Each structure stands twice: as C-alpha cells, then as structure tokens.
C-alpha cells in the first residue's frame, strides 16, 4: 500500500496535512485530514477569573475572534444571570454579522475564487490571487472593499478590528454614535452591489464545475444550526435544530445549554481536531454538517428581501430538499454575505439599537454557563464552570470547524477516489483534494483550540512508510 501525503494543506487557516492511502491496485482506499497543531485553550483557562474569558478565548483566533467573544460573553451572561439590554444585543449582533461578512468575503474573493476563475486544472502559477489581480482586478478590489467594510464595523463598534473589546458580559461596552451609524449606512448600497455581483459571477460559472459539485463531499448527512421558532435564519439567538438529508427535522428547539445531551466528541489518534457527532446516532454515524450550507438548509427564510430571493433559488437546487453538495457551501456563503449586509442595515435602523443603555451588570449567580452562536463556519459552543467566586474550574469549547470534521474527512475521501490516479498524480487532482476542505472554510487554529509557514509538499509513502516520491507544489 502507498500513501500520498499533502502537507501542509494550502489556502486555509492553520496547519493540516492529508494522507491518501492506496491499495495494492493503486486505487484510493482511504483519505484523512490530520490537524497537526495543538493549542490547549480549554486547559490553560482554568484558574483564571470568569471576566477574563472573552479576552482570553478571543485569542483562539485572529480570524474569527468576534465569534469567540460573542459565545464567551453569552456564557458569562448565564453565569451572571443577566439579560443584556436590547441595544447591547443588537450591537453584538451587528458586530457578529460584520465578522461573518468579512470572513466569508476573504474565503470567496481571496482563497477560493482563483479556482472558479481559472479552473481546478489550471497551472498552479495561474491559480492564485496574484493572477486574479492581473486578469480580474475589479473583482480583487471588490473583495478588498467588502472585507474592509466588515472590518471597519468591527473596529468602530468593537474597538479593534482583531480581538475587539466592545462586546462585554451583560451587553456592549459603548453605545453606537449617530455618526458611526451614518457612515456604515452610507456604504450599504455599494456593498450590496458588490455582493450581488459576486453571487452572479458564481452562479454564471457553476456549469463548469459539475464534476466537483458531484464529488466534493456530496453525500447525505445531518445538518445542525441555530434557528428561530419560525425557522428564520439566525446567527446569535435561537435554539439548536438537527435536520436529516431528506429535510426531516429530527430534533428541534434544543436549548444550547443542553448541547451535551445531543453532541458527543470523539477523539482520533491521528489528529488534534476532535470529531463531534450527533449522540443519538452514535459515532461516526452521527456525522453532521454546520456552517452556511447547514444554516440555509435549515432556515425556511432569511428574513431579508434580497437574500430571500436568492434562498428560493438555492433551495430549488435539490427540489426543496436539503442541498447535500458541499461545493454549494460557496453558494450559501455568498447568499449569507448579502443577508449580513441587509441585516446590518435593518439593525442599525432599529430604534432600539441607538438607545443609551447597552449593558447590564450583575455578579456571579450560577456556577455554569453555556454560550452559543453561529460563527462564519458554523455553530460555536463555550461552556464554563466557575467557583462561587468566579474562578474558572472547567472549560469546554466546540468550534465550528470541529463540528464539520467527520464530513470533511468523508469529503476528502470522496474527492480522492474520484480524482486521484496513483499512476498519474496530477496537480489538478491534488488541488481538488485541498479544495474540498476549502469548501468548509476551516479555521484550524480555532478548532484545535497557529499560523505558520505555508509550503506545498506531497509525499508518497509506501506501506513501510518509506518515502518513494516527493512532489514540491510551491
């Protein structure tokens, strides 16, 4: 048996490698993602004061710190038994949406779009953002402007672009000033135009990628997301919902604090990334997907006009049943970009948002708190245990990317079996193996609770673990 190793995986956040095991006939037998970085946040937070947790856990990631701050402050809200004022909640929601907007934008415009523009078989030197800047400069500028818009909102309302301090236990640190509101609202029309243009570009080019649509983690699975009672799209409030691949809701209205009754976490020996699963079905049969695809499958409506128009077309992809093809994560991501812009506008125009009272205060009232929110990549859980004095005694974090671990692994195997030919290992085939992971937009620094050197080396190893071939893709 031979093994092909892709190490590290490129155009994602963090460190991972992929091994592809071949059988005696040279066919793909198995494929796995190994997340090779370790962070240990759950352990070193023990002994710290509860009030430090938003700042500490935000450092889990430089990409989606807002999500961690949101989940963390929600967990502490429970410990303090405090209900944030509506203005504080709305400010949190706006900052959360801004982060989803900037994160989705980076994935589409800067990490994934080269594959859509030039195709997965294009020469490597042509399949990157630098070539895109030459051939599609307006698209590159659009990506920069859209991301800057999201980052600016986070900076204005959260205090800093990265690791913001404006979201605090009990609500928000500061009210929104009228001038801030006006600056953000003035940019909405241009940002919507960019977002709609990107979605149109994607839809127009979809016909070129039927093979990828059919093989990029295209299989039945459960889906999980936060949702409202009326099944509108939700990223901050709501309860958890599990849906099967036929569209049947198998468990609904789960309070986030009860997540452990339904979600187990399996540990595999070859990765630092845990594998959450739906407990009633067991491991690994309880594989589920989270993130934009899951959210749009579960939501019956977005609640904003332009996104809803697109959601109808999205749902028509599989005749109204859940969309099972993970390639469409990109599609869902683009619809969510439109949604976030519309929703930010709606929230800013809500008179509750501009009220003076943005924060409630209290002291430790409970010894356990669970905070849950929808991060760009999916559902995020923070669970804290504290002493009556507020000292952290236990932490459990389930990160969006972790929720998708089983599905990502199954997807890598499916793509490898569809495209990798051991007698002729092409760059296009290996790019597809990486690209299926990129569909999920994993954030590995978060999910292992680093940033590092990105090179591109593939090793082919025989059954004795002897390297028989090294392919340098840099």
């Amino acid at each position, binding site marked *: 048996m031979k093994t092909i190793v892709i190490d590290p995986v*490129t*155009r*994602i*956040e963090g460190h991972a490698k992929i091994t592809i095991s071949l059988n005696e006939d040279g066919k793909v037998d198995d494929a796995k993602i190994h997340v090779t970085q370790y962070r240990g946040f759950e352990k070193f937070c023990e002994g710290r004061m509860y009030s430090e947790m938003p700042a500490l856990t935000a*450092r889990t990631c*430089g*990409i989606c710190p807002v999500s961690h701050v949101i989940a963390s402050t929600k967990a502490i809200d429970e410990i303090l038994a405090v209900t944030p004022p509506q203005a504080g909640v709305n400010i949190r929601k706006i900052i959360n949406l801004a982060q989803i907007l900037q994160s989705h934008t*980076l994935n589409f415009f*800067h*990490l994934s779009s080269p594959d859509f523009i030039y195709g997965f078989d294009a020469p490597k030197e042509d399949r*990157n*953002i*630098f070539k895109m*800047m*030459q051939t599609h*400069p307006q698209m*590159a*500028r659009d*990506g*920069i*402007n859209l*991301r*800057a818009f999201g*980052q600016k909102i986070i900076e204005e309302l959260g205090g800093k*672009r*990265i*690791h913001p301090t404006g979201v605090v236990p009990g609500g928000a640190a500061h009210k929104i000033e009228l001038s801030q509101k006006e600056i953000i609202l003035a940019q909405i029309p241009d940002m919507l135009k960019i977002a709609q243009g990107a979605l149109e570009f994607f839809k127009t080019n979809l016909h070129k990628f039927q093979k990828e649509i059919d093989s990029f983690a295209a299989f039945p699975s459960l889906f999980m997301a936060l949702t409202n009672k009326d099944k509108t799209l939700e990223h901050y409030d709501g309860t958890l919902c599990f849906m099967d691949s036929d569209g049947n809701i198998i468990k609904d209205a789960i309070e986030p604090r009860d997540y452990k009754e339904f979600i187990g976490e399996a540990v595999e020996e070859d990765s630092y990334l845990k594998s959450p699963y739906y407990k009633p079905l067991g491991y690994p049969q309880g594989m589920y997907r989270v993130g934009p695809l899951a959210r749009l499958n579960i939501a019956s409506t977005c609640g904003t006009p332009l996104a809803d128009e697109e959601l109808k077309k999205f749902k028509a992809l599989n005749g109204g049943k859940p969309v099972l093809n993970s390639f469409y994560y990109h599609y869902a991501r683009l619809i969510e970009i439109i949604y976030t812009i519309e929703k930010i506008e709606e929230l800013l125009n809500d008179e509750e948002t501009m009220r003076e009272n943005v924060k409630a205060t209290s002291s430790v009232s409970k010894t356990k708190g669970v905070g849950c929110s929808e991060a760009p990549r999916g559902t995020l859980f923070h669970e804290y245990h504290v002493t009556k004095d507020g000292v952290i005694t236990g932490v459990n974090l389930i990160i969006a990317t972790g929720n998708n671990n089983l599905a990502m692994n199954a997807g890598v195997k499916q793509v490898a079996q569809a495209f990798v030919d051991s007698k002729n290992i092409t760059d296009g085939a290996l790019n597809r193996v990486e690209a299926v992971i990129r569909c999920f937009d994993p954030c590995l620094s978060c999910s292992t609770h680093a*940033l590092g*050197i*990105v090179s591109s080396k593939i090793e082919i190893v025989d059954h004795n673990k002897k390297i028989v071939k090294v392919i340098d893709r*840099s």
Partner: protein
Amino acid sequence: MRVVVGYGNELRGEDAFGVDVIKELEKFHLKNTKLISAFQLTPEIVLELLEADEIIFIDACNNEKNHYALACSLSVQSRFNLSHHISPKTIVYMLESLYEKHPNFFIYSMMTKSFDNIKNENIYKMRIEQIVHHISSAQ
C-alpha cells in the same frame, strides 16, 4: 506621505517589535507620516496605504543565529504565500496591480528566536530606539 506599518502580537513578547516601535514613534508627532499598528497584515490594509509615497514595514523575523540583529528581510518574504494574512510584498503588489500605486518600500526586521517573550529587555529597547531614531531623523 510616508506610512509606517508596525505589526505583531503584543501578547507574544518580541513578536510585538513592530507594534512597540509604532508606540514610540507616536511620541514624535512626525510630519507627513502616518503610523499604523496592526496585529497582522490583511488585504484591506492596502486602502490605508493609497496615499503613501513610501512605506516602511516593521516586524520581528525568525532567525536562530542573529538574535537582535536589525536587517531587511526581503529575501525571506514570499508574495505567493496566502492564508488569512499576507506578506508586505503582497501588499505592495496589490498597490501596484490594483491601484497603480508604486511607493518605495522597506522592511525593517528585528531578528529574533524568542517570539513568545522578551529575552533581554535592554537590548530589545535599544533596537526599538535605533529604528525609531532612524525613522524620525530621516524626515
């Protein structure tokens, strides 16, 4: 206009070299100079550099043998690496290809083998002062 961009993580010891240089430079109120402090370089930062005739990037650079040496690290920066953060050369390439801006640019790096703490406070401060003096006297 001259723009000085210092970047790094303040929680990580000598990794914060660029950010610490910016803090010192802020005390000088330099004319025709914009100071930017960043956790990491991300694509949208180009929008803050459009007015620049000259850009100076300041960071800490991994080097086991020449700890605390000051250098230009152009040779170890690749513009082709891309994740969620990018290199100074990528930023400059974006300015050139997307906005037809062609600023002069320099990268001042302090070599370090200790990103997570400050090994020698005195030398570390001395290196900050050297860079600050160099930039402030070059007006």
